[in-house]
């Protein structure tokens, strides 16, 4: 019998109206699901944009049906202009990085499971939490509205380098209103993330239940905690950068616009600014952002693996310290994005060193995963498959990071598809696999029904093969000198690469279509899946002690008491189970596998 203390926990009452329950809810679980659904919508939009781009890259003159309706100027007759290609690229990247990779693994799963895993009834500031979602949603809607202004969305890329991003309409379509909308949307997004990070950190530091020492927190909770520390500090730098960019557009300042800039034979009437300043501010945020996208995935994957391996990690402490090291170092490496920016070459050297150093904690985490998996009898289910896929993608994408960390090599590769392949695998696909792993793992808890495992496994294998087919060739393209950000490859030396681009495009369309299996499985299981037991995966952490789905107040008004860390797997118990739940006072008997 699991003991719970009988302390009353009247924090906020149960929601009574539909609006309070499902729309403007202060329940962290509802907010988590709202974030998840936002990410689902965003990922569909982002993926369709990538389809359009891939079709254009493979078959440059092909007319895409319906595209003209989206933008008559950008795609006359359905054939996109080079500028419109860049506009779609900018929106694809911005939506994916901010509203999928940050929103799903961190804000969605973190909101739902962080308070539960710490044993709290809710976060300390439920209203801030609700605002956090609605502010983020507003940011998304503002961003998407850029499609519907006269010139369409901006074309300066998700990094929005100045002066392209700062000089306004002279820089091309979308660089007027579109760029201002972009900067406004990200400023709004930063506010939402600040509110979220305040809640996450104070939940971990202030709301843990009795017995839940920091060292007993499940690894996923640690990952969200570390990520929120990054979110608290990184987005705070992006916000003023966006404000300065907006001022350059609307107030006539020239923070990011240098003197004497001539565009289309016209002297730009600004003087004195620095284009490098934007890159410094942006990447000081941008590199931690990469880890904001990936660290929650690491936590989720570790949590999923340890549950399915049925034994502890070789060293959970080393994983935790490594994640902290990643977070800390992520602030010192940002200059490696700027090796070709004209920055002092000595600075490149200085940034190269911590960049190579940051591979050490990443490698430690991977080695501990692989070492722990070695000889374990891993339960193969969709969640654990996606966790393995995460490791595969993280390693494959991470290895190319060694090349790019060195300025001498990076200068050759920086503007090529090699970089595109690198970051798509290591922060895009790997993070997506973390999201999928978390989805298949926690779906029963979130929705009270099991997902279809057969469809899940088909989804995994097709996605796994498909993504390798898309992103591995990017590296070869890079070596072959295929520049990135080009809308078409008409130069002589690029023409032989077009068949490879066509292959990638087919793979992208295929892999995208495969996601329909996931969406079908998600929706179908939501309504027709088998009812989920409280603890379908025999996990030990606190989310598994409650019914699926949990009641509005998580632990039914009682505060759980915790006796163990979340790694009590492979143990021998009196009841015959091979695991002990965190809230069970039972002690392991000698002779278990985990000893």
């Amino acid at each position, binding site marked *: 019998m699991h003991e719970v203390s009988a302390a009353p926990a009247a924090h906020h009452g149960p929601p009574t109206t539909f609006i309070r329950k499902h729309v403007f809810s202060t329940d962290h679980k509802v907010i988590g699901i709202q974030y998840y659904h936002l990410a689902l919508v965003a990922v569909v939009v982002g993926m369709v944009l990538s389809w359009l781009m891939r079709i254009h890259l493979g078959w440059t003159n092909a007319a895409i049906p319906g595209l003209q309706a989206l933008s008559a100027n950008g795609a006359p007759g359905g054939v996109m202009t080079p500028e419109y290609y860049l506009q779609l690229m900018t929106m694809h990247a911005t939506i994916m990085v901010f509203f999928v990779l940050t929103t799903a693994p961190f804000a969605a799963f973190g909101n739902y499971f962080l308070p539960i895993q710490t044993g709290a009834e809710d976060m300390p500031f439920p209203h801030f939490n609700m605002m956090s979602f609605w502010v983020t949603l507003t940011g998304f809607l503002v961003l998407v509205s850029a499609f519907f202004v006269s010139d369409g969305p901006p074309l300066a890329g998700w990094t929005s380098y100045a002066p392209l991003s700062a000089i306004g309409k002279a820089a091309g379509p979308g660089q007027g209103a579109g760029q201002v909308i972009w900067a406004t949307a990200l400023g709004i997004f930063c506010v939402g993330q600040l509110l979220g990070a305040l809640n996450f950190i104070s939940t971990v530091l202030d709301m843990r239940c*009795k017995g839940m020492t920091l060292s007993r927190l499940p690894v996923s909770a640690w990952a969200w905690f570390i990520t929120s520390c990054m979110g608290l500090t990184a987005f705070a730098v992006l916000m003023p950068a966006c404000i300065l960019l907006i001022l350059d557009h609307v107030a006539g300042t020239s923070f990011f616009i240098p003197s004497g800039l001539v565009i289309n034979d016209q002297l730009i009437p600004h003087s004195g600014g620095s284009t490098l300043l934007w890159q410094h501010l942006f990447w000081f945020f941008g590199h931690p952002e990469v880890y904001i996208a990936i660290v929650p995935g690491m936590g989720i994957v570790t949590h999923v693996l340890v549950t399915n391996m049925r034994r502890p990690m070789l060293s959970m402490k080393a994983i935790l310290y490594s994640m902290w090291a990643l977070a800390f170092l992520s602030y010192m490496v940002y200059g490696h994005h700027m090796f070709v920016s004209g920055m002092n070459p000595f600075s490149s050297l200085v940034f190269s060193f911590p960049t190579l150093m940051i591979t050490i904690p990443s490698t430690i985490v991977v080695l501990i995963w692989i070492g722990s998996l070695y000889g374990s009898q891993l339960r193969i289910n969709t969640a654990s498959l996606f966790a393995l896929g995460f490791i595969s993608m993280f390693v494959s994408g991470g290895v190319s990071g060694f090349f790019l960390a060195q300025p001498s090599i990076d200068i050759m590769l920086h503007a090529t598809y090699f970089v595109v392949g690198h970051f798509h695998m290591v922060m895009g696909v790997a993070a997506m696999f973390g999201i999928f792993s978390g989805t298949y793992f926690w779906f029963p808890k979130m929705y009270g029904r099991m997902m279809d495992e057969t469809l899940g496994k088909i989804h995994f294998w097709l996605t796994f093969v498909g993504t390798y087919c898309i992103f591995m060739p990017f590296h070869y393209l890079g070596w072959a000198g295929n520049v990135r950000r080009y809308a078409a490859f008409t130069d002589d030396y690029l023409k032989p690469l077009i068949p490879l681009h066509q292959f990638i495009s087919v793979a992208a369309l295929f892999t995208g279509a495969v996601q329909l299996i996931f969406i079908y499985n998600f929706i179908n299981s939501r309504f027709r899946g088998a009812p989920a037991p409280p603890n379908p995966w025999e996990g030990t952490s606190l989310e598994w002690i409650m019914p699926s789905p949990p009641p509005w107040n998580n632990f039914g008004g009682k505060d759980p008491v915790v006796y163990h860390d979340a790694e009590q797997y492979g143990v021998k118990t009196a009841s015959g189970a091979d695991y002990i739940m965190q809230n069970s006072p039972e002690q392991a008997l000698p002779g278990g596998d985990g000893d």
Partner: protein
Amino acid sequence: MSHPDVALGGHHAPAMEPSPFAIPAIKLAMWLFIISDIMTFAACLVAYGFLRNATPNWPRPYHSSTIISVLVMTVILVTSSLIMLMAVRAARAGDRANAFRWTMVTLALGILFAILHVREWFGMIGQGVTLSTNPWGTGLFGGAYFSVTGMELLHVIAALIALLIIGLGYKSGRYGAAHVENCNLFWQFINIVWMFVVPLVYLMDIAS
């Protein structure tokens, strides 16, 4: 921390073992917000320094009248910091009348600071400084000057509104000592930021 007022801010797990981190959630949130705001100000101040160093014809417009005015503003802020601490001490002791009085004195000094700040701005505007032009050098100067000092002024105004609301609320019993303490944290933080703004923006560019 034994005053019942302090135990605000959400539900606490009852029998939690003593933890060095177990501070009231609203106070923790204020500290976290300050950390975040430090990053925002740092970005602004670093950007200012970066642009100033990267631009050869950066103006040096400040004469002794400006510097004296800025020093007076600084003295006012430091005094208000001290008085705000007296408000916190009174609030911790449950002395609502005195806590309210000192909060209002802080508020008055803050308003005086803001008025002098705005007067400073009008002085610059009167000399022909706009966001994109000025009579002395690079057009960038005005934008940078108004952004950094405007950011500070915006924070001061936000803090003044908070002081007013919390001060009145504390007097009427709506808010507790923890709220007064939170106001204090924010106020002290803004004052510390001002100590960075003064040398960077004013003292480095005194007219020769």
